[in-house]
C-alpha cells in the first residue's frame, strides 16, 4: 500500500502515514494542489516554517511504463506568492515509487543542514556540512561514490542562498543533475528547510492489481509511442526543433522580447545543433534518455569542439531565453551558460529573462556573452547585482526601472512571445503557476495562433490536457502519440490499482485540479489583476507579426470559471 513520508526538519522526525482516501486517486501536481490546500496557509511566508516542500509521484510512477516517471515538486512559491508545482524528468520518482512512497512532505523550521536518506529501511537525517556550498555536478559525483545506486535530488548554491529562481535538481540515468524542477523558486524552499540533498534508494517492482492486463496494455502503449512520428522527431532533433518554428511564427523572444525573429536563428537551431553534435562526435549524442525506459529520447548531450560534454540536455527554452532573448547566437556559449545554471541549481528561463531585462536597462549590451558569464559569476558570489538577477525578471525590472518585463504573477515567460502565440498568452495569464508554458501549451495546435477569438478555449483545453500528464507522471511529449488513445492510460491506471475509472475521470480530475490551484491563489490574495498580461504585451506591438496580445479580458475571466 502506498504511503506518505512526512519529514519534520525541526524535530528531525520522519514517519510513514497511510494515504487518506481523498488523496488516493490523484498524483503529482493534482496531489500537491490538494495537500497544499489542506496543510499550508495560503498567506504564509513561502520561505518560513509554515510552508511545505512536497515531492510527489505520478500515478504510474515506477511501473516501467515509458515516460511515466516524472517528478512533481510542490510548495508555495517564493517567486509568485502562489501555488507551485514544478515538474521534471530524472530518476528520483522511479525509485521513490519503488519504495511505496506516494509523496514526501517536508515541513517545520530547521536548525541545521541535513542530507535526507530514504531507503527501504526508513528515512534518516545525515549531517550535510561537508556538502554545503557545493555545486550540483561535483556534489552528485561525490554522493554517487557514497551511495552508488541512488537517485539524487538536491539544491545547488542558489537554493542554499534562497534565490527566488533556484530550482531543485535531479540526477538522470547517467547520474548527472541536469534535470531541474526549475520553476518558481522551489529550490529556495528546499534551502529554507535546510535540506541540501535527498538520497533515494529504491528498487523492486510496484504492485499491480491486474498484472496481465497491465502488461498487455503497456505493450500496446509502448508500440504506439515508438511508432509515432512525433516521437521520431523528438528523438532526431529534440525540443530545439522549436527554434526555427517559433522564429517562423514570429514569436521567438529576441532582445528582451522586443522582437519575435532572431537574425541568427539558423545558428541556434536544432539543425545546427545536430550537425555540431554529429561532427564533433566524442561524448555528444543527438538522442538521450532522462529516465529509465523512455522510448522517445528527446534529450541530448552537447559536446565542445573536443567532443567533451558541455551540458546535457540543451533544450529549446534555454536556447530561447539565454540565446536569442539575449542576442546571443552561439550554441557553445548557450550550452556553457546552461551548464553553469544547472551547476548553481537555478532556472535558465528565469535567469535568461532577468538578464534580458537588465540588458534593456543598459547593464550590458545585447549579444555580450562575456557580460552574461560575469553576471553568472556575480550570482555565484552573491553580489547585489547577482542577487537582483537571481530574484527573477520581475524584480530585476523593478530595480532597474524597466517596464518591458516578460512575466506574469512574478514568473518569467517561456520562449514563446504571447503576441505571436496568443493561446500561450492566455495560459501565461490564467495559470495559477504564473507564466508557465507547461501549464497549457498551445503552440503545437493546428490553428491560427494570431486569432484572438479562439485562444481562451484552446488554452483551457491544453490546461486540462496538461493536468492528465502532470497527475499521472507522464511526459507531455507522449501526447502526440497517445493524446487520441487516453483509453490506454485509463486501462493502465485501472490495472495498476484495481480501479474502475471511466473516461470522464480525466475531465473531472483536470477541472478539480485547476480549481484547487485557483482556490489556493485566491486565498493567498490573488485577484483579477494577477490574471492579466502587462501593457508591454497588450499595447506594445510585436513588429514581426504586427500584433499585440488582444485576447479579451472577458474571454480570460470566462476561462477562470472553468466551464
Amino acid at each position: 500500500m502506498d504511503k506518505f513520508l512526512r519529514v519534520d526538519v525541526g524535530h528531525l522526525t520522519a514517519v510513514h502515514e497511510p494515504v487518506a482516501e481523498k488523496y488516493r486517486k490523484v498524483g503529482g501536481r493534482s496531489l500537491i494542489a490538494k495537500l497544499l490546500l489542506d496543510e499550508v496557509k495560503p498567506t504564509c511566508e513561502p520561505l518560513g516554517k509554515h510552508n511545505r516542500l512536497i515531492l510527489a509521484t505520478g500515478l504510474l510512477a515506477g511501473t516501467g511504463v515509458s515516460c511515466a516517471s516524472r517528478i512533481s515538486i510542490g510548495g508555495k512559491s517564493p517567486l509568485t506568492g502562489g501555488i507551485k508545482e514544478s515538474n521534471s524528468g530524472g530518476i528520483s520518482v522511479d525509485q521513490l515509487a519503488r519504495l511505496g512512497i506516494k509523496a514526501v512532505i517536508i515541513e517545520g523550521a530547521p536548525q541545521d543542514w541535513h542530507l535526507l536518506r530514504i531507503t527501504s529501511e526508513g528515512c534518516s537525517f545525515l549531517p550535510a556540512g561537508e556538502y554545503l556550498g557545493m555545486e550540483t555536478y561535483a556534489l552528485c559525483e561525490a554522493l554517487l561514490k557514497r551511495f552508488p545506486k541512488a537517485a539524487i535530488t538536491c539544491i545547488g548554491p542558489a537554493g542554499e542562498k534562497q534565490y527566488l529562481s533556484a530550482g531543485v535538481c535531479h540526477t538522470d540515468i547517467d547520474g548527472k543533475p541536469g534535470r531541474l524542477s526549475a520553476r518558481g523558486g522551489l529550490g529556495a524552499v528546499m534551502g529554507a528547510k535546510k535540506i541540501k540533498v535527498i538520497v533515494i534508494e529504491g528498487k523492486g517492482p510496484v504492485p499491480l492489481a491486474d498484472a496481465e492486463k497491465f502488461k498487455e496494455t503497456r505493450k500496446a502503449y509502448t508500440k504506439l509511442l515508438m511508432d509515432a512520428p512525433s516521437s521520431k522527431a523528438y528523438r532526431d532533433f529534440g525540443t530545439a526543433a522549436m527554434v526555427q518554428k517559433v522564429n517562423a511564427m514570429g514569436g521567438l523572444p529576441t532582445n528582451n522580447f522586443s522582437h519575435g525573429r532572431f537574425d541568427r536563428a539558423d545558428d541556434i537551431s536544432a539543425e545546427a545543433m545536430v550537425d555540431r553534435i554529429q561532427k564533433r562526435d566524442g561524448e555528444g549524442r543527438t538522442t538521450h534518455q532522462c529516465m529509465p525506459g523512455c522510448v522517445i529520447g528527446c534529450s541530448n548531450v552537447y559536446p565542445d569542439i573536443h567532443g567533451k560534454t558541455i551540458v546535457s540536455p540543451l533544450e529549446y527554452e534555454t536556447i530561447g531565453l539565454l540565446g536569442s532573448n539575449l542576442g546571443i547566437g552561439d550554441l557553445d556559449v548557450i550550452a556553457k551558460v546552461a551548464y553553469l545554471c544547472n551547476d548553481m541549481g537555478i532556472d535558465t528561463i528565469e535567469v535568461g529573462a532577468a538578464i534580458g531585462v537588465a540588458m534593456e536597462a543598459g547593464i550590458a549590451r545585447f549579444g555580450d556573452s562575456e557580460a552574461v558569464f560575469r553576471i553568472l559569476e556575480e550570482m555565484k558570489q552573491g553580489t547585489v547585482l547577482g542577487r537582483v538577477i537571481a530574484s527573477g525578471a520581475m524584480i530585476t525590472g523593478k530595480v532597474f526601472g524597466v517596464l518591458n518585463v516578460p512575466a506574469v504573477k512574478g514568473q518569467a515567460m517561456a520562449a514563446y512571445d504571447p503576441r505571436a502565440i496568443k493561446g500561450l498568452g492566455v495560459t501565461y495569464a490564467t495559470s495559477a503557476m504564473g507564466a508557465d508554458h507547461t501549464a497549457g501549451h498551445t503552440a503545437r495546435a493546428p490553428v491560427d495562433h494570431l486569432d484572438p477569438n479562439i485562444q481562451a478555449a484552446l488554452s483551457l483545453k491544453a490546461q486540462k490536457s496538461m493536468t492528465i500528464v502532470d497527475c499521472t507522471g507522464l511526459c507531455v511529449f507522449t501526447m502526440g502519440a497517445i493524446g487520441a488513445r487516453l483509453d490506454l492510460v485509463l486501462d493502465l491506471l485501472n490495472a495498476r490499482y484495481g480501479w474502475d475509472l471511466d473516461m470522464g475521470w480525466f475531465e473531472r480530475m483536470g477541472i478539480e485540479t485547476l480549481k484547487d490551484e485557483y482556490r489556493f491563489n485566491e486565498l493567498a490574495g490573488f485577484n483579477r489583476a494577477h490574471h492579466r498580461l502587462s501593457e508591454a504585451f497588450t499595447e506594445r506591438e510585436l513588429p514581426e507579426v504586427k500584433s499585440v496580445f488582444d485576447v479579451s479580458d472577458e474571454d480570460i475571466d470566462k476561462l477562470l470559471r472553468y466551464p
Partner: protein
Amino acid sequence: MNDITVIVRAFADFRAILGAQTEVMLAPGRTIRDLLELLSKEHSSFREKVFDSDGRLSEGIDIIINGRNVGHTQNLTVELQDGDQVFFFRPLSGG
C-alpha cells in the same frame, strides 16, 4: 502575368527531402495545395509525409506562411504571393 517565386524552407526530416531552402516558381493564383502537389511530384517521399491515404493533409506537418500557421486552418486554399516564405515543420512543442 509573370510566374511568382516562393521560397520553401524545410526543417527536421523534411530537410533531407527538400533541402534547407529552395525557390519554386509557380503560375499566379496557385495555392499552397498546388505547391504541395508540385513538390510531391518531384519528391515521392514528400507526398507520403504530407498527405494521408485519403489525400488529406497529414497531422505530421505544420505549414507556416509569413508567420501564420495555415496548413490545417484554411484547407490549403491560401493563395501564394510572389516572395512568400513557406516553412515546413513537424508539429512539436518545446520543453
